[in-house]
């Protein structure tokens, strides 16, 4: 009980504290934080259209967060989710605009396969470097993100440029490779695909041999090697899954949201980095990730509303996001803190009441 309470507090305290600091900053520049947070919440969660948009925005983020989670869980730092996602999205887009008039099912499937494959291939570079040559994957993936960004920039400016566009952009993907909008909202079939992938990943994490091995490798690499879990091979598998999820995220973002590649395809700080925060918020567990993803994308859609309806710079949300990560990095409340004990008493009381109710 104590552990659960302190775990919950350790997620909520950082969020509250970050919002509090955000409020202080807003007051300092003479704005009304209550109004700003009001718009944030109302437009992203309370309004039906906004809520569906939030869920739509959350879709690729769930995938990048899972991509981060599977690697971080194994104590492998694949910081290259951003790059893998960019390349996956880009090449899914290339398939999207190269073909025209295909059967939508075939076209969409083909684009997704290409996006996923590219994500995997790009993830294999750090994977092989790590598995075969023990090169630090953290630094390599950080470097490769920049290389990937420059590479797609080159492709978007050169070979795959939309000649009619005034800025760096590839042509718009064909109608047949777009995910159709559902319920007059921004939601598309992609969200449903994400949910299916999520269920599969939940299963992988919780119920399979791979999930077991990932947990062991993450918690004690020497132990895993000694008990015959061939860590090198597993590193490659983890990177492949991570890359596939990232590639799928990029492909889905392309085909359900962006429809063409521009230099702001990934947003700021980028779907991969957002995914990292979500994974952290959700403590690398699948269920946690899905809650965190909705919360986080509410922040994103809400921040756009802030830009539209108030004069507070949208960057306030970036500040709040980074503060949340910072505060999340530590345990704010220990299991033995007073607050935990008090809350435990309260919950116990409530639970006991419920129990009585059931018995009667």
């Amino acid at each position: 009980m104590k552990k659960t309470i302190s775990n919950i507090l350790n997620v909520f305290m950082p969020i509250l504290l970050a919002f509090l600091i955000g409020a202080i900053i807003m007051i300092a520049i003479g704005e009304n934080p209550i109004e700003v947070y009001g718009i944030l919440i109302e437009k992203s969660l309370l309004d039906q259209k906004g809520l569906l948009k939030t869920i739509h925005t959350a879709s690729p983020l769930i995938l990048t967060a899972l991509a981060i989670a599977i690697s971080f869980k194994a104590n492998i730092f694949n910081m290259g989710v951003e790059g893998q996602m960019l390349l996956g999205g880009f090449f899914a887009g290339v398939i999207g605009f190269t073909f025209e008039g295909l059967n939508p099912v075939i076209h969409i499937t083909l684009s997704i396969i290409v996006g996923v494959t590219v994500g995997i291939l790009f993830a294999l570079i750090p994977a092989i470097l790590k598995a075969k040559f023990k090169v630090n994957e953290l630094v390599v993936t950080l470097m490769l993100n920049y290389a990937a960004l420059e590479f797609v920039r080159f492709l978007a400016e050169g070979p795959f440029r939309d000649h009619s566009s005034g800025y760096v952009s590839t042509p718009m993907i064909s109608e047949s490779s777009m995910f159709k909008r559902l319920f007059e909202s921004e939601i598309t079939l992609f969200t449903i695909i994400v949910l299916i992938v999520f269920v599969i990943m939940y299963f992988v994490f919780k119920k399979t041999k791979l999930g077991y091995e990932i947990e062991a490798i993450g918690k004690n690499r020497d132990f895993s090697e000694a008990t015959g879990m061939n860590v090198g091979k597993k590193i490659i598998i983890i990177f492949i899954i991570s890359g596939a999820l990232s590639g799928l995220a990029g492909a889905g973002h392309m085909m359900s949201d962006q429809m063409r590649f521009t230099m702001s395809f990934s947003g700021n700080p980028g779907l991969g980095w957002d995914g990292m925060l979500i994974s952290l918020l959700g403590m690398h567990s699948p269920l946690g990730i899905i809650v965190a993803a909705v919360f986080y994308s509410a922040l994103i859609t809400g921040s756009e509303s802030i830009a539209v309806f108030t004069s507070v710079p949208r960057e306030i949300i970036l500040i709040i996001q980074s503060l949340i990560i910072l505060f999340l990095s530590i345990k704010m409340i220990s299991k033995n803190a007073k607050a935990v004990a008090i809350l435990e008493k309260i919950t116990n009381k409530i639970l006991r009441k419920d129990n009585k109710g059931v018995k009667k």
Partner: protein
Amino acid sequence: MKRFLLLTVLSVFAISLAACSKTDDAKSIAIVTSAAGQNDNGYNESAVDGAKKIKDEFGVDYHVVDTTDVPGALEQLAESGYELIFSLEYNFDALVNGVGGAKSIAEKYPDTTFVVFNDNPNLNEDGTVKHENVISVVFDVHESSYLAGALSVSVLENASTLFDASTYSFADLDVDGRSIGFIGGVQSNGITVFSYGFVEGINRAAADLNVNYDYYTDYSAGFGDPVSGSTISNTMYQNGVNVVYSVAGVVGDGVASKANELDRLAIQVDANKDADQPGSILTSVLKNTEVPVYQITKAFIDEKIGDLDNALSYDLDSGATGMTDLAEIEKMVTASGMTKWNEIKTYIETLATEIADGTVTVTDAQSGETLDTTTLTNVTVK
């Protein structure tokens, strides 16, 4: 701890109350800026200046939105009742065509007029207008770039007459100094339109003076990093380039500061930035969004917006594009050089007239034209 929880609960309540009570403003306009943001000291900022002017004159309020989600912002603004929205970002798909089977935003909000810039996406294949409530604005920047090109050559060829010898340290014209550079953010029609006009202007002046010029280009500087502007222009200047024209947002600030450092010349773009590095910026090629914002909003206030064309083109005469008044560079001209300087100014004016009356046609990449390099008799493109 309890206090925290209480605070949250309370704020959520307060928030919901506050948020529900937003009233619609009567007649107010919105400007959705491009990625560079409203403080870019150029393209976006002059649009905001136009709106400010309107506010001062007619009291019509304006709202500026910096966003990464342009379609989302357009929709939210239209939804909340704005009737005139300027969208400065190059992002038209959702507005004009609709994506993923959804209705286009223009169609969804027929009572709102959307103004887009730099392109005309609002045309069907057969040339008819798609949405009556979308106005596209293009600037004839190829023409102003043409003038800038001609000015560059004229100034370089007469540098020894115009300026004090110690003011600039130009590369020797007879060695490799007859070189001019162009730095673009990306390789796209929106950028090459400047470059083509510029190089044609160089060619014109070079031909008139019977000299030959080298033309260096780089279209990969991006729009965000002045450092890359500084380094790329440095390589150009080190290779003998005496004037660098940059069309790449704040990248140009890096170029201008490099020009200042090396005592050469730079040409800026969008707004009048001549005074940023006095004496080092030859001129700025204006893309003055203030003019269309002001004019269109005025039409909107007068309820004559329906009379406007769906495609507005702003040429040299409109004042929305052109060169600056050259006041900053003129300060560098010595007394003895003034005669020559006035000669050059007259020459440029002649060229402007020739463009206006159609004697000279400048390649317009914006409308899909490509540069025919064989016409560049006196320029070698490197």
